[in-house]
């Protein structure tokens, strides 16, 4: 229906997460309608990001160059490492501005049904970082899902005896209404209650 070049663009856009056929078409028509310069600047941005952004050689989060912004920042506290599943998980933790340590991105979570084994995650790299010394605490911030919890307990096992390992608490969202929370969340919040 569409000329082959346009069809190819639609097809490529459709492969993006959260984009279906219709959205892909809308985006493609949009790119054809705007000025050539505007359309090409998107293409250039894609090219540039692929050429310049790689993984940090220490923590495996996104980096322009050898080290990411966090790892190259001398003011960060090197005695704490926060372990997350994906590079995008770094963003919400950084937004809190209350964590001053470094990160370690595992690159996923253990999930045998998806064929993800410990060897597929950057766990040996994490062990090596801790073994190198100076790490007083590893904070496991994998998602509170089944695969995230399994990953957390695996990380805790391999690091046992090497350093202190803690897990992100789970409980009620701030500003949320108790009435709307599910039983599991409330149950965990109860289990993790604190003295006032």
């Amino acid at each position, binding site marked *: 229906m569409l000329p082959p070049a346009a069809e190819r663009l639609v097809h490529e856009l459709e492969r993006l997460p959260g984009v279906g056929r219709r959205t892909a078409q809308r985006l493609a028509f949009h790119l054809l309608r705007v000025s050539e310069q505007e359309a090409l600047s998107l293409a250039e941005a894609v090219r540039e990001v692929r050429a310049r952004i790689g993984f940090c050689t220490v923590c495996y989060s996104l980096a322009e160059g050898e080290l990411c912004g966090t790892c190259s920042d001398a003011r960060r506290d090197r005695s704490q490492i926060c372990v997350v599943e994906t590079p995008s998980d770094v963003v919400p933790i950084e937004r809190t501005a209350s964590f001053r340590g470094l990160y370690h991105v595992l690159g996923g979570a*253990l*999930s*045998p*049904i998806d*064929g993800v*084994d*410990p*060897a597929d995650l950057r766990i040996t790299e994490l062990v090596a970082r801790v073994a190198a010394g100076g790490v007083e605490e590893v904070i496991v911030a994998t998602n509170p899902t*089944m*695969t995230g*919890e*399994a*990953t957390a*307990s*695996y990380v805790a*096992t391999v690091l046992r005896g090497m350093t202190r390992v803690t897990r992100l608490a789970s409980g009620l969202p701030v500003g949320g209404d108790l009435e709307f929370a*599910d*039983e*599991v969340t409330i*149950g965990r919040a109860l289990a993790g209650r604190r003295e006032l």
Partner: protein
Amino acid sequence: MQVERLRVTQFRCYERADVTFAAGVTAIVGANGAGKTSLLEAAHLALTGYSPRTTNDARCVQEGAAFLRVEAEVVARGSSHDVSVGFEPGVPKRVTLDGKSLRSRDQLDAWWTCLVFLPDRLAVVKRAPAVRRAYLDRATSRLEPAHLTEVLAYTRALTQRNALLRRVRAGVTPGAALDVWDVVLAKHGAAIIAARSRTCAALAPLFAERLVALGGPGGSTLTYRPRLDGGEKDLLAALEARRGVDIDRAVSGTGPHMDDVLLSERRRDLRVYGSQGEQRTAVLALLLAEARLIVERRGEEPILLLDDVLSELDTGRRRRLIETVREHGQALITTTEVAHLPEPPDGVLVVSAGSVAPLVERG
């Protein structure tokens, strides 16, 4: 709780129906295929947000109609409520309580309980352990809502562990990768075993008592038969001990997914030795035991929806059943003949070809 009124629009054989229910036992009378069970089903849908007969709501929409709607007026915890369920194929079901739309039909469970008997519920006694486990988990969730989440979590962990067993057997992954999944499985498994045994322990004496009340010979028991009893540590130890066998077979061979519940009368397993009538009585005793437990725990009796309970029972058992049901408050009971009821019910609804009418002035 009590259902005072039910309005039905384009539901199965009903174009429209508007009925009121008596406080005690209401008999729904009609010939085969007249729509007795459909009326019970509509009441269940209005009260719980789902049909007890099918998981495909589209089947409940009247032939040729675009949507269905069921509404009920319910008195619960001393105040009256309007609940309505609307469904149009292809659009998410809409459940509203007192004019407010609910996020999920599960929210209705916090307000009242509806216990239903359909002839296919005999499977709980007759069929494989999986049916009894499913029943036990439903009953447990009605008492402890968090149980359902544990069961889902356990099932997911089991799928992961079995997938991993296949990978280990194929030599793709070292066996040590099983450690974490054993821990997850043991954690959820132990929670399930504990909750199931709490339910069985509470149900057992009530079940025995109800079965006698229904005319059983006595000496009946309900026993939880966990494949593996114990806490998280025991489960973990058992999983580790079985690891070799599990890898060979690539399937997890122990845990609450293999539990059973034994229902017996005078030391005979009702599943194997029970007659049709005895099995039916046992399922009803189980339902009435649960009703009693719900009254104890929640302070309010559930409504009982009983489809075709009187068939296969002798006159004595029928009389005792109705007497016991009466103690429980409100019940809707379908039957082909009003004469099957041992005593006059509190209300009679006559169903024929998609219309319902109260029977006027009985003699």
